[in-house]
Structures are given as structure tokens and as C-alpha cells.
């Protein structure tokens, strides 16, 4: 399917990441959003609130993020494409419903414009401290998909990816922006609608009576329906069988939870979006994501001008984490620096994947200001010397 030409704001715009994210969601077919204001994410829903009434969409400002994060799931089961948008404290409130979306296999998009935490922390300043929370924040074992854009253009492009992946995998998909990317103004080229691939929700073709909402008929995904199609489905956050009925015992749990995890993990390669540059034969490779990767690119350029052999890997897909990708980097470089705006989150994943093959260094930050290119350059020099 292609995007709806009546909705897509085709053209070249000078807008910030938050607005680009809103426009991308619209292009992806999102017509319902529930949210609660929170800096630095609010502009996303403000823009949505302005645009939706002209597009047959509905935005509702809920009473809190707990409500927002389940209200949009109600709309999804009603057949709409929908999202919720938040930042740190709101994300914390949403955690129970991340688990619900994982358990009920609801194709849901959570936009998280990250700020410094914990608690109220730094409302107006950036951080990358939610990376582990989106992965582990809800109780129990589950898998999610998380993408980190690094420019307003990518906010547009990859929120569409996020919606498409949500439909394909039926999992919570996190769109991990940060204050810098959200408020960064930049040129955003919005293509013609017929250039934008949109994945429609695929409803079952089986007739009622020959369909179970959580049966695997082919592949590793159940087939979806929406309320009102005559299938009389039941969904529950309880451990359930193929009918969606509660079945609470260790065997049913094992079967369901492994399937929910594996339907993501088994597709890690297809889900991996990244950019790598001059890693082979480098003395050091920088691994970063989001705004930090953007800064790192500048530092890497400086280092290369000074004759240093520096590679770069920018992760766009944060979850599922691709161990193979990181091991390949470790094969071809002499050392790794992970730079991230937290006190060390993804570095644990990198270290786990690399083992003791090459040393893995960390440039950390408690958040509040982007990591300066000089800091990265200095670390590169320190590591290669």
C-alpha cells in the first residue's frame, strides 16, 4: 500500500523532529492518538491535534499516561492505526500497558522523546536514559522493537518504519527520539504519497468459526481481526491459549512467552537498521545512536583528517539487539568506543556481544547536554595512542 495523498504533506519543509514525527505518523496512516502533555514531546501531539480533524482522525488528551497508553490500544482493536507520545515520567507510567500490548500482540507505537532522568529530572534537556527501560521496564519476559532516529528527516522516515514494523510484528514499537532531535530544526523532504510504503493491517481471511485469534496458521504471527467483524474474539493480559482464553499453567506460559519473544528475536537480522562506515581495519570504532551518533560522526571526521583510522557504527535499531553485527565489528576493528547520553546502558549489550575480543570503552554522560565532539575526539586519541 501507498500513503494517502490527501494526508501527506509532500514538499520540502523546515521543521523540527517533533513535527516531522507527527507528519510521518500521519503519512503512515495513524488516525488516532492519545497523549498527555510532557516536555519535550508535547509538540508531537500538538501538531497531531491540529492536523487530525482535517484528516478524519481523532486526538484525545487523556487524564494521564496510564490512560493514554491503553486508550490507544482500544482504538487499535477497533481497527485504527494509533500511537501514544510521551517522555521519561510518562513512559514510566505506561509500563504496565507495554506488557499488555506485548501479551495481546497489539500493533502499537510508543513515541518517547527522551529527557534527563530519573524522576522529573531535566524536563527540557536531552538524555538517552530510557533505552533499557523500554526493553525491560514492564514486568515479565517480552520483546519489543526500538528505533532511534538522528535527524528531523529520520523522524519522518522512521516513524513510518515504526508503524510498518508494528503491523508486521504485532509488538510494541518504541520510537526513541530525544530532546535534541525533537527540537532540532532541519530540512525534511516529504515525498509524494505514492513514494511512501505503508503496511496496512492484515486481517484474517478465514471466516468466523474457522479462526482463532492467537492460533499460528503460518509463519510466526497470529492473524488479526478488529472488533465488530463478527469474530467475537477475546483478548486478555492473562496467559492464554490460541482462543485467547485464560490458560494459566507452566506449559501454556512457556509456549506463549517463548513465542512472543521469538517472533521478534528470530527476525533480528531483518529488523536491523544501521549505518556502518570504514570499520574494516580501523584502530577504533565508535558505536552510537540518536543525537550522539550525529555528534560522533563529526568527531570521526576530525579524527580521520588527522590521519587516524576510525570506523563508525550507528545503530538505528536498538532492540532487538543484533549480537552478530557487533561481533562482526569486533572482528574488524582493534577497539570499540560506545558513546551514549546515560551512564552506560547499551555498552553492556556491546560488551556482552564482544566478550574479550577487543576492549570496549565508554563515553558516558548523565544527560542534560549532548556529548561534545571534542570529548569523543579526545577519547579516540587516547584509545589509539
Amino acid at each position: 500500500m501507498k500513503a494517502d495523498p490527501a494526508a501527506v504533506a509532500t514538499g520540502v519543509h523546515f521543521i523540527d523532529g517533533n513535527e516531522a514525527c507527527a507528519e510521518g505518523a500521519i503519512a503512515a496512516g495513524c488516525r488516532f492518538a492519545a497523549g498527555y502533555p510532557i516536555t519535550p514531546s508535547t509538540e508531537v501531539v500538538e501538531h497531531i491535534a491540529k492536523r487530525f480533524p482535517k484528516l478524519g482522525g481523532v486526538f484525545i488528551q487523556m487524564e494521564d499516561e496510564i490512560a493514554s497508553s491503553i486508550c490507544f490500544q482500544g482504538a487499535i482493536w477497533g481497527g485504527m492505526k494509533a500511537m501514544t507520545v510521551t517522555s521519561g515520567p510518562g513512559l514510566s507510567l505506561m509500563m504496565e500497558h507495554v506488557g499488555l500490548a506485548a501479551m495481546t500482540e497489539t500493533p502499537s507505537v510508543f513515541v518517547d522523546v527522551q529527557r534527563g532522568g530519573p524522576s522529573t529530572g531535566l524536563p527540557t534537556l536531552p538524555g538517552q536514559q530510557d533505552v533499557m527501560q523500554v526493553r525491560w521496564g514492564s514486568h515479565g519476559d517480552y520483546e519489543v522493537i526500538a528505533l532511534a532516529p538522528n535527524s528531523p528527516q529520520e523522524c519522518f522516515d522512521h516513524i513510518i518504519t515504526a508503524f510498518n514494523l508494528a503491523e508486521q510484528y504485532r509488538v510494541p514499537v518504541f520510537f526513541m527520539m530525544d530532546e535534541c532531535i525533537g527540537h532540532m530544526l532541519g530540512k525534511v523532504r516529504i515525498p509524494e504519497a505514492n513514494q511512501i510504503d505503508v503496511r496496512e493491517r492484515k486481517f484474517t481471511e478465514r471466516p468466523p468459526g474457522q479462526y482463532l485469534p492467537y492460533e499460528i496458521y503460518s509463519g510466526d504471527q497470529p492473524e488479526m481481526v478488529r472488533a465488530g467483524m463478527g469474530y467475537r474474539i477475546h483478548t486478555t493480559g492473562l496467559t492464554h491459549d490460541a482462543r485467547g482464553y485464560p490458560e494459566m499453567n507452566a506449559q501454556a506460559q512457556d509456549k506463549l512467552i517463548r513465542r512472543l519473544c521469538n517472533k521478534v528475536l528470530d527476525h533480528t537480522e531483518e529488523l536491523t537498521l544501521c549505518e556502518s562506515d570504514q570499520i574494516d581495519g580501523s584502530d577504533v570504532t565508535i558505536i552510537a545512536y540518536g543525537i550522539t551518533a550525529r555528534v560522533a560522526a563529526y568527531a570521526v571526521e576530525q579524527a580521520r583528517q588527522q590521519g587516524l583510522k576510525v570506523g563508525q557504527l550507528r545503530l538505528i535499531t536498538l532492540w532487538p539487539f543484533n549480537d552478530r553485527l557487533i561481533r562482526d565489528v569486533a572482528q574488524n576493528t582493534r577497539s570499540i568506543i560506545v558513546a551514549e547520553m546515560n551512564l552506560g546502558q547499551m555498552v553492556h549489550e556491546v560488551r556482552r556481544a564482544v566478550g574479550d575480543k577487543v576492549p570496549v570503552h565508554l563515553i558516558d554522560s548523565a544527560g542534560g547536554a549532548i556529548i561534545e565532539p571534542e570529548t569523543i575526539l579526545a577519547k579516540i586519541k587516547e584509545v589509539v595512542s
Partner: protein
Amino acid sequence: MSDAPTNSTPTNPVEKLLRMERIPHIWCPGCGVGTSVNCFARALDKTDIDYDNLHVVSGIGCTGRVAGYVNVDSFHTTHGRAIPFATGLAIARPEAKVVVYSGDGDLFAIGGNHLIHAARRNIDMTVICVNNFTYGMTGGQVTPTTPYSAKATTTPYGNFEDTFNLPNLVESCGAVYVARWTVYHVRKLIKSMTKALNTKGFSFIEVIAQCPTLYQRRNKLGDGVMALQYYKERSTVQNGAPTVDVGLDYQSDIIVGEFVDKPRPTFMDKYNTRMTEILGNKFVPYEGVK
């Protein structure tokens, strides 16, 4: 279960609504939740609602299990959050009737904030609250409806907090239809449920029901039959009673009836009106998923 004839036409209205393959249910002998479901099935039968366009949403609790037994599109959500889920569903499905069926703790303790806002917004849904004065599912703790002095596991010396008067609270927040019955009043409850189901906007029914296993037993109030006897002897029907006067005390008289019936535009009515006024022909109303 599986050897039940599949080609027979069910004549029992309750059977028509239930997922018969899930019976027996989890409710204790003498519990009032099942009676309320029986009334709900009969009420539905008296409406023109197409079962394919009826959606039942529950939170978590004994009453929260209702969604699992009704043979319609049904959603068992999280504790306290049935209403916000139903809000999204009701907006997405303007042609559907959305019913929230849950317990007093689910709707008024953990879910209280959502309830007052859905009533304020006049979201098009019917909320059925089974008030058993306790947290059934978790073993009999105190709730915002446990009367003064009643014992619960977390108020072993008797409850000392004040309670919510549910009809009054819901009316204050803007509900268009408010009623209260006990599970003794099955005919009147059916009538009220029928009315609520046929009402546009946020309608609310409090169903007072016994929990013999926890509330009755801990307070030495006898079994389910004794509870029904109390409901019979101490209830007075006062349709139109001011809701401020219908608060409940421990084993007090119970005022039941239809208290509020005053329609007003729903959330989507107001959305459409406002956007049409301001945006004119630039407004594209949401008309349901095609």
C-alpha cells in the same frame, strides 16, 4: 462441553450471550456477579443491539472476568483501566455499543480517575459496576465502598475511612443515566440495563451484590441467601431520588432506583459540532473504520 449439540437454536437468552465452552465459571457458589450477568443477557435480548457490534471491556477482579464469559468481542484489560481502553474502542467504533463491566475497586479505587473523566467527557459507553464492598479477587481487602466499621483483611479492626457514594459521584461528573439496584431486584435491574444500553453517552449502573466468601463471612452476615433477604427487606425504590441522599452505611437501608436520566451531547457529538463550526468544510469527521 464439547458434546453439546451445535445445531440447536438456543432459547435461553443467557446461553446466547455466553461462551458456553468456558462454563463452569470461576465465581464462588452464592456470588452475586453471575446474577448480574444473567440480567445483562436478558437486558441485551430486549434491545436491538447486534451482538457483533457489542463490545465488553473489563478490568481485573472477579467481576473483571465477565469479559471472558460473554460471547462478543471482549477485552480483559488491566486493573482499573477498562474505561480508557473502552474510550479508544468507542471512538474507533462509533457504530458499536461499548460496555464496561467491572468491580467497585477496579472502577473507583485504581480506576477512579479514568471513570470521572469518561463521565465528564460523556464518552458513549455503559459502565456496570458490581459493588460487593470488597476486593474479591485478592481475598477481601477494603475498598472505597466498604462501609464504616465493616471488616476486611486490611481493616481487621473495622473500616474507619469514609466511602464513595457511587451514584452521586458519577452524577457529579456528568453521567447521563445513573441507576442502582441490588441483585435481588432482577426485573428492575434488567429494565435499567436495557435503558442504559439504549442510552447514548455515559450511563452507569451500580449493582449491589453479595460476596459470601469474603465480605459476608468476615462480617458474619451469613450466606448469599441471607444477603438477598437483607436486600429485599431493607431496600426502598426511590426513582429520581437526589443522589446526595443515597449513600450507604453498614447494613443500612438501601435506596435503589433510577436516579438520573438527562441526555446531553457525547464526546464525539461535541467534537463534530465544534470542528464543523470552526473548520467548516475543511473538517473531515471520523466515521469509523471502513
